């Protein structure tokens, strides 16, 4: 069966990620710490603004948004650029390319095990705690389904971007530099660190035309929208789908071209 070889990779990934028990604990501590800082910082900001609603978001909206953005980040961060960069530098890439699975898929499915552990160990608990603490500020209805669909597309867009950037490592040894640039741009422009609603007007418009906001801002705004209008949901999901396809094509194309160039040059 075809799916089976991918699921084997998933299973191996789960086993591997479970072996680092302390790492999991530390990551949870780190997230709690971050959340504490975020909580008090935004509390101070809301307190000094004098109003309950800033840029159309209440304090609990902002909090839920940022907490879940962090949980999503832990979930989606696959260190793809590092992985590709290191394989290239160590020459391991040659072995990976010889495997009977396309490299782009191989890498994704190797990591997919961590998706599952991350989902159960960090995302789900965070979600439940936030939902409980904010007393129903998260509307539990059809929006959950849209949220899940949206997250799946977000994962795909994020992976495509990572893979696209990772491909650049075929040309340069500077993995750190490449990765940090990608990370900084994605985190800022996707609304992962500050909700896009807070961005000043011209910047907001520009950001909406870029693929990054489809990664964090889109799923989270769908989730937080208690009374979703079919039209807004459709537009958000449609935009995501569009970026999903565009980025996938771009990343595949770039990989193909780069690989051909490299093999021709014998680099």
């Amino acid at each position, binding site marked *: 069966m075809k799916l089976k070889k991918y699921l084997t990779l998933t*299973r191996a990934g*789960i*086993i591997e990620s*479970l*072996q680092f*028990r302390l790492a999991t604990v530390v990551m949870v501590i780190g997230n709690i710490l971050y959340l504490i800082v975020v909580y008090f910082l935004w509390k101070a900001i809301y307190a000094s603004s004098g109003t309950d609603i800033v840029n159309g978001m209440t304090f609990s909206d902002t909090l839920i948004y940022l907490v879940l953005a962090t949980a999503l980040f832990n979930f989606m961060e696959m260190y793809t650029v590092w992985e590709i960069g290191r394989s290239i530098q160590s020459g391991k890439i040659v072995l990976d390319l010889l495997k009977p699975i396309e490299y782009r898929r191989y890498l994704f499915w190797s990591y997919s095990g961590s998706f599952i552990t991350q989902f159960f160990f960090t995302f789900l608990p965070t979600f439940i705690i936030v939902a409980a603490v904010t007393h129903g500020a998260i509307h539990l209805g059809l929006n959950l389904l849209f949220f899940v669909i949206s997250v799946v597309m977000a994962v795909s867009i994020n992976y495509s971007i990572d893979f696209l950037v990772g491909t650049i490592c075929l040309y340069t040894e500077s993995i750190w530099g490449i990765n940090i640039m990608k990370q900084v741009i994605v985190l800022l422009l996707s609304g992962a660190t500050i909700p896009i609603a807070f961005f000043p007007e011209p910047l907001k418009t520009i950001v909406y035309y870029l693929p990054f906001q489809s990664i964090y801002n889109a799923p989270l705004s769908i989730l937080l929208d208690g009374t979703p209008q079919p039209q807004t949901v459709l537009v958000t999901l449609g935009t995501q789908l569009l970026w999903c396809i565009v980025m996938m094509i771009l990343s595949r194309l770039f990989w193909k071209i780069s690989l051909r160039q490299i093999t021709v040059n014998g680099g």
Partner: protein
Amino acid sequence: MSPIIEIKNVTKEFKVLNRREGLRGSLKDLFSRDYRTVRAVDNISMDIEQGEIVGYLGPNGAGKSTTIKMMTGVLEPTSGEILVGGNVPYQNRTKNAQEIGVVFGQRSQLWWALPLVESFRLLKDIYQISDADYDNMLALYQSLVDIEPLLHKPVRQMSLGQRTLSDILAAFLHDPKIVFLDEPTIGLDVSMKSKIRTLIHALNREKKTTVILTTHDMGDVDALCRRIVIIDKGKMLYDNDIEHLKGFFGSYRTLKIRVDGDLKTQADVIQNALRDFSVSADDEWISILVDEEKAKVIDVLGQLQRSFSLRDMQLEEISTEEVIKKIYEEGVQ
């Protein structure tokens, strides 16, 4: 004069995590862990004199590296005493480091991006080598191997052989009393191997440096070591002259024959006929290790001639390789 290295009843134990298998096992490991103690080195004692070259042998995982790590001060023995040049290495690691040189496996200790000569200059400062000593050493190196072309080449651009050579030179640079060489010829071609053996031999002779050599290559042992120490599963099996070792197997000789047909299949047939002796085959010869206490070689040959048409034959004394192999397999009687 007291020995340069004294090891008395040294034991080293490690705690190792037992990992469970499968997905369920990993989940269990998350919540409870199960350790067992492994004795990597078990009650070893030996003395090594200044200027000796000692071959330290044993199969993979026998405890060789662990012993060397204890002698270099990286590991502390669980029990027992080690003195290296009068120091307890674990307690005076830096002081000990001044007196020893180490080449560890294929891990280069040189600065990767720098030309060799820059690495040498840094080592000169770190080991506080005087200008005169440094110049003498480089002159000696130049007389032994042609280092001039290596000196200005960054280490990362060197071939494995050149890098190993450079690492060995770097280990001898501060004229240490002892040099530890862990598999120095691994992965090298025949001519590089011989070049490196000659170099080690010459440096040992010139500088009276004690050399502790671990290797799987019996060519290294034959070329360099008079004394060998063998350890397996942490226990010492043998510590004496190499000649003495061969004495254990003095009654053994290797009979090599060539017959018609595929050598591998013929070797199996012969093995069935001569159940007392071990028979093996390579591309050219079928080798039969004959114990002359059980049967004379000439009789074996006669027996073979009756059933096979022999095209060629050779008779050899037992090689170090075969002795070591027999010891790993059967131990010393």
